[in-house]
């Protein structure tokens, strides 16, 4: 993902990136700004196991979260979604920082196809949007928040690990047809029956 990043220095000598003419942190005091940002989300930090920060910037707000969690003996898992690899590299270089759990997919389909990311979303993490990062990459984050997966079988069969199930699904026009296998076919194979079981399970509610 190409971006137009400029680096500015605050009066106290801190590096602040400007991307697409948007300051990603305060030009005067990014640390104080990060503390203010943190204030708004403190309750969620104490109650949620997983936090997903949308936008990395130069990481001042991430520092504030980590510092607070250390002080309070909290240990939520903090994940950061930032598609701009160049921004991350510059922050690591200029600020000598290194964070784990950075998610850098530029392609949203690839992101949602990633089982680790899907497993994170299943836990209903607390979304913590960094407003300046989102403003500087509005299309990406808007598409992220409104993403819908493709229903085309051609888009999913290559990711299905069981070859027999994959080839059974490949015969269908779209993935919705998995729910109709029982009615559509006169003879059912073992893979058909497994997909029928899968489809029946989908009909169930959250509670047994």
């Amino acid at each position, binding site marked *: 993902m190409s971006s137009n990043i400029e680096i500015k220095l605050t009066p106290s000598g801190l590096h602040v990136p400007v991307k697409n003419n948007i300051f990603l942190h305060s030009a005067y005091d990014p640390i104080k700004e990060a503390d203010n940002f943190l204030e708004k989300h403190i309750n969620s930090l104490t109650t949620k196991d997983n936090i997903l920060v949308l936008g990395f910037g130069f990481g001042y707000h991430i520092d504030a979260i980590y510092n607070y969690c250390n002080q309070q003996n909290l240990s939520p898992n903090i994940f950061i979604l930032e598609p701009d690899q160049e921004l991350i590299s510059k922050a690591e270089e200029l600020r000598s920082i290194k964070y784990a759990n950075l998610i850098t997919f530029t392609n949203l389909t690839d992101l*949602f*196809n990633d*089982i680790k990311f*899907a497993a994170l*979303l*299943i836990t209903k993490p607390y979304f913590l949007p960094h407003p300046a990062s989102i403003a500087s990459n509005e299309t990406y984050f808007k598409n992220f928040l409104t*993403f*819908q*997966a*493709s*229903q085309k079988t051609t*888009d*999913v*069969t290559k*990711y*299905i*690990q*069981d070859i027999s*199930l994959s080839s059974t*699904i490949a015969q269908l026009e779209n*993935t919705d047809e*998995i729910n109709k296998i*029982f009615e559509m076919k*006169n*003879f*059912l*194979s*073992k*893979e058909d*029956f*497994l*997909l*029928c*079981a*899968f489809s*029946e*399970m*989908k009909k*169930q509610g*959250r509670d*047994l």
Partner: protein
Amino acid sequence: MKKILFINLRRIGDIFFSTHLAQKLKVKYPHSSINYLAYKESAAAFDALTNIDNTYLIDRKTIITYAKSPIFPVHHAVNLFSDNIKKVTETKWDIIINFSNDPVGTHISSALKLFNPGAQILGTFHNERKKLTDSSTASQYLNECMATNAYSSVHLSDCYLNFAEGPLDTIKPNTFVKINSESNQNNFKRLNALRTNEITKLIGIQLMSSSTNKDIPMEVVANIAKKMIDLKIGLPLFLISNAPEEINYAKDLSNFIGTTITTISTSFEEISSVLLNLDLFVTPDTSVKHLADLLEVPMIEFLNSTSQLKQSSISVNNSILVNETKNNSETTSDLIFLIQKMLNPKITKTTTFNNSVLNVSFNEVGVFYNQDESCVASSSEYDKRFINKAILNRVLLKNKMELRRPLEIQKYSTKLFDQQLTKLKVETVTLSKLILNGLRSLLSGKSDKTNSREFLLTLTELLSLSEVEGFLRPLAINLKVKIESISDNNSEKNRKLLEAFFFEMKSQVSETNLLIKELESFKQSAPKNRFMEL
């Protein structure tokens, strides 16, 4: 060694309950391995069980979340599902039991039948042509009648144990319940310390079930707890899990009673040793009830509806109180009496009993719930239940053993039983006429349009009986299933098949007539109607 797989995609209590059949199979096939396919959310059941060789879990909740959310591509759900059942599909099974009898379990059974062509399937499955197939008449009854009847006349254990053939009694002791001697000793010491010189008995009360409809009303729980202490009957110990809603419920109960209550919060791993150290356990229909039943802990089961009797306690020393009055004060009084009676069988009732109390017993045809002598039978439900059970066993399963009269018919033979018997007679006459009409058309040799139309009308009327509740509905279902299995295009061959089905049904009706005579003899030999005296 036989490899046996239980597909049990229901709740924790159903997993406990299924070990009755597992026990039976283990006796029949001593060198077998018992394995389970279950949902991950029921996995805690296996903490209380032992002697299960492998447990395969389906992470149902995650699969559903992946599958239902539009943000996730479907392959996440498919991959997780196929990964969860991979080892099950890769294993060669000798016996596959569709115990949960639900659509998911039935499709998995159908797939496994194709993975294991030589395997015996117990329960329901589809063949490759999508035909729903029942492994036995008991399985057919379970699948077609129990799921749709407003009440269930036959206990699930009778159907399930029939899967394995042979006698219908349960096998004791159940070797699948995990007994931890260290935990037993600890709980013995812990609970024994609660006994005093004045109050020597410990009475466990299960506070919550899976549904508020099943729970013992809080007012009743509070009142029996107070009376137990006031009358020095025993110390009430409230069993709860670690779930926040159960902890909060216990707090609410404590506030309601106005004093501190003794709760025991325990996991499934430890609960057996708690139950074994109780003098009596009072519980609604819960998973813990099924575990206590396996452990043969003296128990009073509290039901809000007779519809739950299909899965009630099957330990012969236990009692079931059916909360028919829905009057908390009357129910409290009945329950207190029953608790005293369970602790001291010699005690006699001096006041009127308001709800029905059933005692668990077995006879040749399975589990019976007899009315307790000291309690009123206020519903025709028990008569219906008895007649339905007799039809399943005598007519459908062809068990030729003598029927023993249940206590309520011996002692209280009522107008209600008479009414049910009359209904059965009317149904039998209707069915006889239809069968004779059908046979007349089939045997006349005519193949003209009028004859065919008449036959079709008769057949339609007969099959419509499979849709309405009635004593002879299972016979109509039996015919429907047979007719649906016809797949040949040869009309002469099909006519012969229909003839055979009709003759078989005719013999079932003859058997029903014999049964009616036998049931009438119960009525005639019964003493005068004590029902009216109460």
